[in-house]
């Protein structure tokens, strides 16, 4: 990630130590140092973390609790690899005394005669990607205007957009459906993209605006003085600094849309049913077919799990920045 040209310590994403110490050292920061250098709080904490762990009892209890917490998930996971008969007659814990591994459940659920999770998987991907991309691009534009272009009614408009986060999506669903029907796009992918984008915009604009406000005004002013217009400022100054924020929100939105049930239930036609819809219906219509349900559930969960585990840092950062969707 490329940093802005001047300051070395403009995080643009580190939420904790936020705006207080945005020092802009003139010239080099290496030569003038008193000794011994006083450690910043973060560094001190790092030192402490290595030396001052809490009691081993606390650690042990915490670990045990964490493992117990994950037992239900583990149970279903193990089951997804067991033969159908075994799942339905014996508890999954007997797996360890009598291991029988099979990929048959996954095969049946993905390509099998009565379920088509392979299509559902594609549907989920096709629904999710634009539903992440569209709100972010629109929100970036809007947040930029709210933050850096002074126009009449800016304050009022921003508060209006911001307060729309309050609105539960249920309140908009049926009229939206009616409108989609009127425009002839009902049941298509466009309804899902539009709906998800609409619902994500208030929060997205608010979040991105917050992050933009964290960027020192001096950077923008300097660029303006150099003759840069909106576009140049946007791409050369803001975007590089906003990458963590955009990453955080993207992951957030990605998980939200991938895991969504209600919007898909209301708008999607049978051709484009995503995984959540398929698995929810499977639980309702064939609730005892645990060999299918377990494999199906994990097909639906594997991507969010990987995204979450791999990009946890950004996700947590987004949460802490106030990106909490109801």
């Amino acid at each position, binding site marked *: 990630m490329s940093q802005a040209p001047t300051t070395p310590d403009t995080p643009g994403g580190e939420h904790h130590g936020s705006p207080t110490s945005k020092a802009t050292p003139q010239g080099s920061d290496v030569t003038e140092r008193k000794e011994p250098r006083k450690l910043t709080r973060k560094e001190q904490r790092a030192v402490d973390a290595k030396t001052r762990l809490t009691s*081993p009892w606390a650690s042990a209890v915490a670990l045990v609790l964490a493992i117990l917490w994950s037992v239900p998930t583990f149970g279903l996971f193990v089951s997804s690899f067991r033969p159908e008969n075994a799942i339905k007659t014996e508890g999954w814990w007997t797996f360890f005394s009598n291991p029988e591994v099979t990929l048959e459940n996954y095969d049946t659920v993905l390509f099998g005669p009565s379920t088509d999770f392979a299509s559902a998987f594609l549907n989920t991907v096709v629904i999710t990607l634009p539903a992440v991309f569209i709100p972010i691009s629109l929100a970036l534009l809007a947040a930029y205007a709210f933050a850096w272009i002074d126009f009449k009614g800016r304050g009022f408009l921003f508060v209006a957009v911001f307060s729309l986060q309050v609105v539960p999506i*249920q309140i908009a669903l049926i009229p939206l459906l009616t409108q989609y029907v009127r425009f002839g796009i009902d049941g298509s992918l466009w309804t899902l993209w539009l*709906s998800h984008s609409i619902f994500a915009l208030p929060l997205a604009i608010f979040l991105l605006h917050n992050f933009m406000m964290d960027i020192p005004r001096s950077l923008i002013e300097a660029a303006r003085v150099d003759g840069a217009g909106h576009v140049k400022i946007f791409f050369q100054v803001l975007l590089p600094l906003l990458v963590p924020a955009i990453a955080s929100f993207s992951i957030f939105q990605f998980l939200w849309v991938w895991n969504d049930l209600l919007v898909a239930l209301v708008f999607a036609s049978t051709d484009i049913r995503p995984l959540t819809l398929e698995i929810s219906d499977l639980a309702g219509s064939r609730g005892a077919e645990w060999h299918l349900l377990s494999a199906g559930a994990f097909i*639906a969960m594997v991507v969010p799990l990987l995204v979450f585990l791999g990009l946890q840092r950004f996700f947590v950062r987004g949460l802490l920045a106030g990106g909490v969707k109801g």
Partner: protein
Amino acid sequence: MDFLVETTSAGQKIVVMLIAIALFLLVMAVVLWAADKPRVPKWLTVVGFVGPAVLLITAGLIYPAVLTIITSFENTSGDLVGFDNYATIFTTPNFRTVLRNTALWVVLVPLIATGFGLMYATLVDRAFGEKFSKTLVFLPMAISMVGASIIWKFVYEFRPDQPGVEQIGLLNQLVVLIGFEPQQWLLDPPINNLFLIAVMVWIQAGFAMTILSAAIKSIPDEIIEAAKMDGVQGFSMFRYVTLPSVRPSVVVVVTTIAMATLKVFDIVRTMTGGQFNTSIVANEFYSQSFIFGRPDIGAALAVLLFILVVPIILYNIRQMRLSEEQR
């Protein structure tokens, strides 16, 4: 051009997706290109930047919301009937059960999830394997609520207590091990609600833990040092130092979870379909509007959701401001 709307094959879906992304890239490009042109007046630039978002929000959120509010005052034929739908919700026994269940959810989930999250965050702070433990506890937030529902439906699974029949659900197996009869946990009201609530708590506790862990870590070291020098430790430390310091964050967490709980629909739908008196407002909204053909009642329920959420979010915002000032 039919394929743009009716996508059936994989190839069609991918193509349309790429078209959608390309379209919005185009919109962005046009806006940015025109923004710096010398003779473009400022108001036009502003419209270009803010316009698309505001247009979508107005057409997709504000206008529908107004329509729904109006629908809540009509009957299915479209005539205005005043507060009839609301009266139905508050007086009919079935709906009152829905309201009661919702109240149960909104009170229990935030309290228990936050309580556990706070306890765990304190416990795991600077413990060995902290990151690993926290990841495990937070994991349920990443899987969908539908996924979590399946996981727990499996835990609650019931097999009758007959010779030769073993339990396959974890809970019943534990129950049988200590000598009791296996139960159909999701069948009998009102206890079945608690088993559904447990799933939401399992999901949200990780969220509470994450936020509160950050809050705990941002307590200034000086305060903790001073307390330690005064001989405070253990539970007293928690009660007199940690807890007051993280109070604003606790309130934010409780209110956020409360809002999430009000809107939750997936768990009830996947696990019981709303049967056995487990339905809640968000679930009932869907049932009434799309299954029972009563969009008027559905609209009233949606408006009710809205009314319930607003004070919570106002309180939430106030507390967020407070906690920011503290930092």
